[in-house]
């Protein structure tokens, strides 16, 4: 009988994500989005149409079987649902929080045509958090193949490669240059968007798969990639990311109070300087903070500055709101918290006080011309429109470039003119047995695209090891 009953029409609107109120959250570093309750997760999951040919999965770089896990979720089979996700994605608690789902799986969701797409990311997060709170089961060990792989960098790409290869029975050793694993997940993304305890829990899971992790090993200066191959590793994966800050080359850029976004975020996130002097790494935040740039890193910097006690935080971006590369949701969050945006303005120089500390920034107004190679309209300076802004703290968030140490210490490794490593679809580089993936190949991109590259590389490395008996 029930089978013939027509399904109630799904609600057009997604269940909103519960969040800390802007006035509260701007004063703390706790997570902004607090996560669905069970009731909310079930309600949101019920909106899924369970399409016979689901499009959502085609938008996922790691091909999570989305409609299958959503089906299990709404049947209350949480354990099976999270296992379904983990077949493809070893880091769901992270992806559920920081993936740009709106331009991936959710963009393809059929519900998006009649209303809001199913909040796939929030459901993924719900399941990952449910599992972590209950205690993650140690995955069964796969029979050893006797092969060894070295992974350079414990960021999203490296952790994914390591997890996938360990599941296939290979011995994996990760060398991480910083004193903590996670890469951009620990040094870049702030606590209020991605709590570090969650990153640690996901890393713990990868280690439970049998992966060995060494922190504080800068490959290139300690072992080089060719030395790793000689030391008995059948293959090496390079996932060293895009961790070098870009500056603008403007007069006064080396004044005190001018941070690269990387420095600012490393201090705040990795070194926890928001808790100075309990933690030893200092940070100085002024009253009038300016953040230059329009990406997610700029949003993260601005929102961190506000939480550190700045009176006013203003984002200065040379194009308009429409061209901002930051996730729409994060721009909204930032504005709700009281962050100001100055569009169509570009800094041209900085002025310092007698102590060598920045006190003002000169800008020029911009207007948008025809689109450039990125497809966005190119900003052009408006003659005679210069103006000066008072500021005592500037955060430069205009991009990050690839880490160069491996490239300069690995003979025979092909590198592009931008310093990225040349690798094919599967991550294969110009050296046999050496693979690369993530930002070190593509330039600065997303966590999930790095994980996608890691998945493909893991598959290729596995085939290489088994075929060649390496």
């Amino acid at each position, binding site marked *: 009988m029930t089978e013939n009953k027509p399904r109630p029409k799904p609600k057009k609107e997604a269940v909103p994500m519960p969040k800390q109120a802007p006035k509260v959250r701007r004063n703390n570093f706790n997570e902004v989005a607090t996560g669905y309750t069970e009731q909310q997760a079930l309600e949101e999951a019920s909106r899924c149409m369970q399409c016979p040919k689901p499009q959502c999965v085609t938008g996922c770089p790691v091909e999570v079987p989305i409609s299958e896990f959503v089906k299990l979720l709404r049947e209350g089979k949480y354990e099976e649902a999270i296992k379904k996700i983990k077949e493809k994605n070893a880091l769901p608690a992270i992806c559920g929080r920081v993936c740009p789902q709106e331009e991936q799986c959710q963009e393809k969701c059929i519900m998006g045509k009649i209303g809001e797409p199913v909040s796939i990311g929030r459901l993924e997060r719900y399941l990952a958090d449910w599992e972590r709170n209950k205690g993650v089961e140690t995955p069964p060990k796969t029979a050893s193949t006797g092969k060894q792989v070295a992974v350079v960098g414990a960021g999203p790409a490296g952790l994914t490669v390591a997890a996938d290869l360990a599941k296939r029975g290979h011995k994996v050793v990760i060398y991480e240059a910083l004193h903590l694993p996670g890469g951009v997940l620990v040094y870049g993304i702030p606590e209020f968007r991605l709590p570090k305890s969650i990153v640690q829990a996901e890393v713990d899971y990868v280690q439970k798969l049998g992966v060995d992790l060494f922190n504080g090993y800068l490959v290139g200066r300690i072992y080089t990639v060719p030395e790793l191959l000689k030391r008995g590793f059948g293959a090496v994966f390079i996932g060293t990311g895009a961790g070098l800050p870009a500056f603008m080359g403007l007069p006064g850029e080396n004044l005190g109070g001018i941070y690269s976004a990387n420095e600012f975020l490393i201090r705040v996130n990795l070194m926890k300087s928001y808790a100075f002097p309990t933690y*030893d790494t200092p940070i100085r935040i002024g009253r009038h903070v300016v953040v230059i740039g329009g990406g997610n890193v700029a949003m993260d910097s601005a929102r961190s500055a506000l939480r550190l006690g700045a009176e006013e935080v203003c984002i200065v971006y040379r194009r308009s709101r429409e061209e901002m590369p930051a996730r729409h949701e994060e721009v909204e969050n930032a504005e709700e918290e009281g962050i100001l945006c100055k569009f169509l303005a570009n800094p041209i120089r900085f002025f310092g006080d007698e102590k060598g500390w920045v006190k003002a920034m000169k800008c020029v107004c911009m207007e948008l011309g025809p689109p450039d190679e990125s497809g966005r309209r190119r900003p052009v300076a408006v003659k005679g429109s210069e103006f000066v802004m008072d500021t005592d703290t500037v955060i430069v968030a205009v991009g990050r470039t690839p880490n160069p140490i491996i490239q300069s210490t690995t003979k025979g490794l092909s590198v592009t003119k931008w310093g990225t490593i040349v690798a094919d679809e599967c991550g294969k580089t110009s050296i046999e047995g050496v693979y690369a993936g993530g930002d070190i190949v593509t330039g600065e991109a997303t966590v999930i695209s790095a994980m996608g590259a890691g998945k493909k590389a893991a598959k290729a490395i596995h085939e290489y090891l088994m075929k060649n008996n390496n």
Partner: protein
Amino acid sequence: MYEILSKTELAPKIKLFEVSAAEMAEKARPGQFLILIIDDKGERIPLTIAGFDVKKGSVSFAFNEVGKTTKQLGQLREGDTILNITGPLGIPSDIKKYGNVLCVGGGVMIAPLLLQIRALREAGNTVTAVIGARIKDLLFYEDKIKAASDRFYVATDDGSRGCQGLDFLKDVLEKERFDRCIVMGPVIMMKEVSELTKTHGIPTVVNLMPIMVDGMGMCGVCRVTVAGKMKFGCVDGPEFDGHKVDFDELVNRQRMFLPEERLSSLVWETVGGCKCDGK
């Protein structure tokens, strides 16, 4: 975790640690540095490598107890451990035969200078060594440096030992032709020596240790202007052409966090941790 194998007091508040770090010992070269973090609440600080012993699997470094972290470090004992030490970092010194080399070291950097002198001498150079400190009591390694070099001078700011200040260098530079000069020490000293050697056209290398966080090119706090271009002390250095470094900017950048450093030190001494009983 890295175990402290030995601890030596070189001068008041200047200590030398030898730590167990076999892999680092194999790779370390003169001129390079390491970054250490004492515990999970610690800050990452760069220190110049002052020695390495492949057989023993150890690396050594000296430090001056000036801030909270170095004071805390100074209280550790043999057998204690340090959470993490990353290294070697930076581009090694270009050790080869130059001919007649002048090596100048000041303060805590006298320790790594010894390593530099020995390597240069081994490469067939004639080495004139100059070491300096504020006062006599802060000098160390006089005998070792003297034994390792061909000619040896010592100076103090107050003249309590050897020459007073570095003015005597003018005479040395007048009398003798040097092919290369290496300076390791306080920024002010590196600036002063670079200015002197510039007038004589002697290629001069300074080993800079600006403020760093990661020490591998990621944060950019160590940026210095060299020949008008932005360079990172950690990955482009630590050695630079002393005649092209903007020392005034470097001095300014070294002072950026002084108030916070003082606060941190004060909190350490008054509320927690410090075991020096006000001595």
